[in-house]
């Protein structure tokens, strides 16, 4: 009976402790800064030569494709690995295109998390699978450096053409709807009518080709002649009879 009481007291304490530990692990202690050489390997699990070569490759890849691949290699449980990958991604890939690869060779686990912008184009599970499948042969041989290099190379292949995918898709050709066509037609007709109306007004106002002339009003009264009140004999006459042909000609 007494023993049961002790257990009933200890059990909530254990649960509370477990929850606290999980929270601590999930939030993590101070996160490391983004490594300038793209590789975070606090436990020196990769060979120094292989690490340096891989670092050069990653730097070069970033310069060429604008995609940063940051590799974190350390030993951790799968659960902690997943949480840490998210935290590192938030810390290292706040802007731009990039991925965080968290690689734990000892439990043979890996996670690849894309940056928020890249996540629109790439799925974390697919990236993780790509890395895992490429790294598997190296891991089977126990060569972590080869495994990491193979995984990273597979990722680079997958993300190398990301620029092409980033290009905006071609806009579909605009095809007006029936209503839009009617509106456009009405607008054009209205514009044409307005133009014609203005042109007609200008034409009539300018009177370019139908200019009228006015004679000066005579100041003195006319000198009437021959009894004519409208015409005084100012005239010209012309004869246009065909010349008569002589019968003898």
């Amino acid at each position, binding site marked *: 009976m007494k023993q049961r009481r002790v257990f009933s007291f200890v059990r909530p304490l254990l649960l509370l402790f477990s929850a606290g530990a999980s929270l601590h692990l999930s939030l993590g202690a101070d996160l490391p800064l983004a490594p300038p050489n793209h590789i975070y390997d606090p436990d020196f699990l990769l060979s120094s030569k292989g690490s340096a070569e891989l670092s050069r490759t990653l730097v070069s890849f970033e310069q060429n494709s604008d995609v940063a691949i940051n590799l974190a290699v350390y030993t951790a449980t799968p659960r902690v690995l997943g949480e840490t990958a998210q935290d590192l991604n938030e810390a290292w890939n706040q802007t731009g295109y990039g991925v965080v690869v968290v690689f734990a060779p000892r439990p043979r686990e890996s996670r690849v998390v894309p940056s928020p912008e890249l996540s629109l184009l790439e799925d974390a599970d697919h990236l993780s699978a790509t890395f895992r499948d490429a790294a598997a042969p190296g891991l089977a041989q126990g060569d972590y450096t080869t495994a990491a290099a193979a995984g990273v190379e597979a990722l680079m292949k997958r993300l190398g053409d990301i620029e092409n995918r980033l290009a905006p898709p071609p806009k579909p050709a605009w095809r007006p709807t029936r209503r839009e066509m009617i509106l456009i037609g009405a607008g054009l007709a209205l514009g044409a009518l307005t133009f014609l109306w203005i042109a007609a007004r200008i034409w009539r106002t300018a009177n370019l080709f139908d200019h009228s002339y006015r004679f*000066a009003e005579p100041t003195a009264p*006319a000198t*009437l002649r021959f009894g004519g009140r409208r015409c*005084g004999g100012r005239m010209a006459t012309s004869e246009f*009879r065909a010349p008569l042909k002589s019968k003898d000609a």
Partner: protein
Amino acid sequence: MAEEIIAKCPSCRRPVNGPAPSCPHCHVSLRKLDLKFGVAPKHLGSITDHEQILTSAERRRLTTLLALFQRRFPQTTFEVVIAESPASVSIGEYTFWLANRMRFSAIEAKGERNFDLLLVVNTTGESGLSAGYGLENLIAEEDLHTVLEAGRPAFVGKRWAEGIERCVQSLLERLRDLCRKEK
């Protein structure tokens, strides 16, 4: 004192200076011509063609042209009379008589306010072109001669519509030039 316009008698073609109820040389007057010609032919619009010498199409074309003339010179009425008079009739007398007796001018268009023009085409071989008192200061007898000469080749070939058209065109250009010069 206003410059006196020298005119020629429509009958004897001698110059007459100053007011003259009749020609001092041949004594012709409008009254005498009334007795000679009788009643003036009925006015049938801008083209009077009782003998129907022109086709309908020709008449339409000329009417359009005369309407244009009217628009260009709103003070003027340009009338065309096509007649088939005997050769004995003087075209000068006939044109003068028609210009005064045929009722195509406005009532107020008399004396110096008359700017009307009359082209008479006698299909027997003569044509006459008269100008009202109002145009005497502007258009000279030589100008009227030039106008008639423009239509002469067509009249010789009995292409009446073409001859009239050329006369109207020539007069349009001449009057336009004179108006521009005056300005």
